[in-house]
């Protein structure tokens, strides 16, 4: 089953195909932000396939992390 995980946006480089860095377990990882033009630095997004798929609210972040914590046991420190 494919897996997608919420991460925080650290910076945004605007452009026709906007890119950004997200915080994944303390590492800066690049991803494409073209689908989420409304995204701001500090927002949490769901990332898969190298694309931020959606901006998610705080409650959804908590629910998602809880699901990983419960089943996967591999939730990285925020």
């Amino acid at each position, binding site marked *: 089953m494919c897996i997608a995980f919420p991460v925080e946006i650290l910076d945004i480089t605007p452009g026709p195909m906007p890119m950004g860095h997200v915080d*994944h377990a303390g590492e800066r990882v690049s991803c*494409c932000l*073209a689908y989420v033009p409304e995204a701001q630095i500090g927002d949490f997004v769901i990332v898969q396939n190298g694309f931020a798929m*959606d901006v998610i609210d705080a409650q959804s972040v908590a629910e998602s992390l809880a699901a990983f914590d419960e089943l996967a046991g591999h939730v990285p420190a925020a």
Partner: protein
Amino acid sequence: MIQHVDLSQVVDAAPARVVVTRDTSGEVTNVGFDLSGLPRVDAMLVGRPVVEVPALVEHLCGICPAAHHLAGVRALESLAGSAVVPPTAVAVRRLLHYASVIAIHATSLIVTHQDEALALRRFAKAVMTAAGSPGHFPSTAVPGGVVAPVDASQRDLCVALAADTLLVAQRLAERELSAVALPDLFNGADVALVDDDGYVDLFGEFLRATASDGSLVIAGARADQWDELVAEAVPGSSAPRPYLKPLGSGSGAYRVGPVAQLRVGVMPTPVAASFQQMWRQSGGGAASARAVVTVHAVEAIAWLLGTPGLDEGPVRTDWSSDLPAAVGVGWVDGARGLLVHRYSTTENSRVAAATILTPTAQNEPWLGELLRAAVGDTTGDEARAGLEEAIHEADPCLPCSSAPAGAMDLVVDTVSASTAVKGA
């Protein structure tokens, strides 16, 4: 067996790995795609209250949460026997499902058709909001129905967007149908959901399977017949090799997704049906199939938005979470194809066993054939472009699928037949 999820593989995409097996004379004996990046969570669900499973799974698979949400709720209803879901609730669920299909198909367009992709996603988001799921994770369905009918003002907003969105989807379909498609060499079956008249129905209650020559293998089976329809050759594996039981494990490989959806039956909406005819005449590639299914989803939403009673109840029937020890199966035909949730439960409504069978796992044999055709008689990097094309065609739900042409992080490992046998 418990599998742990390697989250580094999720954000920091791992390369696609193709394994080419050659015998001692150098002849290719097998080509496979490494699906180990797709963990199975089935074993982790055992012992949990079954009513919690749909929400848990949809939060892990953040890409198709609506498909897992709807398949999971259907599986819960199946556990309880027959739940009569009110017509308004069925319509609201369908809105969510069609919108999620559009949103996912739009993903493959972002690099080549950014404005169109964003327009499709805006429409999909508005429809999902109207269907009761404004956030990323759906909150529309509950066992027995849905939480609420469609709000009239949100319905009107979607109606205002529908006509222009259909034009966008039609333009994309025309472009995709004019492109050259890969030849369809798959000799397995095609599996998709249909309605009770045999028309393609992404939210259907009947499963249809056709052989590569178009003959019927399964005319229309219900979800509660699942155990008679499909078995996994390697149960619990990331690549479980499911097969159609009526055809046997040796020749029962099948394909799901947009190509299968267009091959098993006729589209029930007029514009998509017209494109479907062109698609069949053009040779039938996957990219154009995705575009035709997107047209259908927009049409279906437009039709649903115009049905009376969408904004009024009743929206649910009584449903007890005190479930018997039973087996329940729920499914939807999502953007990438058939998704199945199968739960068996104990007397105290906990999971005794669970199977989450994804489209990517079901399409692995098809992807293997595409890769093998791409490798052909080549011996090195000259096959690379063809391998990328093959992976885009089968569209596994993995990081590689969204890479632009020529930019896929792809590793090709060649092993000898004797090593492969030893490692199996």
